[in-house]
């Protein structure tokens, strides 16, 4: 696997006037510097535009105002990689290049271990290459795992053997990756060394339950993908291919996001004008 850990966060912009400055800062300043770090295999960000927000499902209230999702993939050796990753964050602050702290909130952020990648047969790249392949959008589902037992195994097997292969047949589904909270795995640093941690209420240590996340990579409009899933789900339910996983997981975030084209940061301008 090309990366052994990922960092994922959901971001909310507290002041709507700052969407452009936020994108300008991240896309033209912070991300390029991050991509220079040898341990950063890839970093990407997507927007939950108003139409995507409307198409969300199963949202817990604290995530309802999420505007962006961000993910960085890390190569080994993780200790050195994460040292550099967090050093850059502090350097950026000391350089006076962290303006986002004045207008962002991250209701969710943490480290995950990639579990498995899937690629639609029409797409020729490997699962490892999927995150680097351009997308028109993604669909993110995050859930809290209520248990870690045989029932959970059965749900995970269903995802692996039935649900994800089915979803890959839907319009625009290029592939998928599943992830699990790093709490469930060995810590990505030496036990003897101080560990990086987050101080805010959304920190990994504040999560009472380990998380499971699925990202669908889409090369067609994300809303068309969702419409196709809804249509196909009728037949899948009738055919017994849909499994109730609620005893095992609580889905608290499920939403499409769009790709971010540099300088085309106007998704929220219309919403502002209308309001």
């Amino acid at each position, binding site marked *: 696997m*090309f990366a052994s850990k990922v960092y994922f966060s959901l971001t909310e912009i507290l002041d709507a006037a700052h969407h452009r400055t936020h994108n300008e800062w991240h*896309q*033209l*300043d912070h*991300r*390029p*510097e991050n*991509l*220079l770090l*040898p341990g950063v*295999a*890839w970093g990407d960000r997507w927007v939950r535009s108003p139409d995507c927000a409307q198409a969300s499902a199963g949202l817990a209230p604290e995530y309802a105002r999420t505007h962006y999702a961000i993910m960085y993939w890390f*190569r080994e050796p993780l200790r050195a990689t994460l040292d550099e990753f967090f050093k850059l964050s502090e350097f950026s602050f000391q350089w006076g*290049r962290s303006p986002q702290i004045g207008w962002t909130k991250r209701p969710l952020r943490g480290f995950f271990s990639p579990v498995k990648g899937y690629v639609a047969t029409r*797409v*020729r*790249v*490997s699962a*490892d*290459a*999927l995150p*680097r*392949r*351009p997308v*028109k959008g993604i669909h993110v589902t995050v859930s809290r795992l209520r248990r870690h037992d045989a029932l959970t195994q059965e749900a995970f097997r269903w995802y692996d053997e039935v649900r994800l292969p089915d979803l890959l047949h839907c319009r625009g589904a290029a592939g998928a990756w599943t992830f699990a909270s790093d709490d469930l795995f060995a810590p990505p640093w030496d036990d003897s060394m101080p560990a990086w941690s987050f101080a805010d209420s959304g920190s990994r240590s504040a999560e009472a339950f380990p998380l499971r996340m699925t990202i669908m990579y889409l*090369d067609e409009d994300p809303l068309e993908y969702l419409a196709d899933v809804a249509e196909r789900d009728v037949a899948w339910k009738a055919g017994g291919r849909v499994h109730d996983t609620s005893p095992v997981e609580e889905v608290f975030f499920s939403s499409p996001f769009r*790709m971010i*084209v*540099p*300088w085309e940061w106007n998704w929220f301008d219309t919403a502002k004008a209308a309001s």
Partner: protein
Amino acid sequence: MLAPLVHLSLTKIGDPTKHRAYNAWRQLDYVPELMLDPGMAWADAWVQSPDCAAVASVATHTASLAFDYAQLHGFRAPEEQSARRFVDQRERAFQMGRRPDVEWARESLAAFFVPLKGYVNPRVLISANALPVRPMTGVHLTLSRFLAHDAAAEAAYRWQDRVCIPELLECTGAAGAWTFTSHELFRPARDLSAATLRLRIVYLDGDPLAFSTECKERESRRRAEGRHFDASAVEQPIFAGPLRAIVPWRWTWFESAR
């Protein structure tokens, strides 16, 4: 330095109906696999759209260098190993039947270069190393052949560094620049009497055509004011012109032309 070695290739698409197929292949198949290699620092590509080609300066003796796309790949250290794997990946893709471009794409130039110096417009804040991975609207690419490795060439390089590039960075939309020279000059068995290639890339975050126009205006003004350095004794221009960034799925530049 992020990438102590780079590879420039210029590609011409022989069949004009294949531009979409070429971009889909490169952007959705070839590059994602290529970039899995930790030795790859970046894989940039730009298009010489018809409006860009209309304002480019092309030397008459280099008609065979006609191109639609320019690709610049950067390699991390140990750079020669990274470059070897880059070459291997091209063959591996061919062996997997994933090089449809061989049917309709022709490389008019493919060469390794060594990065010399990066320049960043102060408004752009980032480091010079980060320039190639910062989103851009396009680049302005200048390629020339230096015929000698002597005092005249050194004077031309000094003028580029101290006068020309700082002036270019004052043009609207110039985010920064990098200069590059032929990799052959850094080999033990180098031949200093042989001509070498010199590459300059100005990274743009404004309109590439407007930048190109402003460049020409400034050059005319320098010439009129006697401030332009005449390097014609040692430098043969090959190409100078703007190229556009390629946004996934927006591969329509040549469709209206057809």
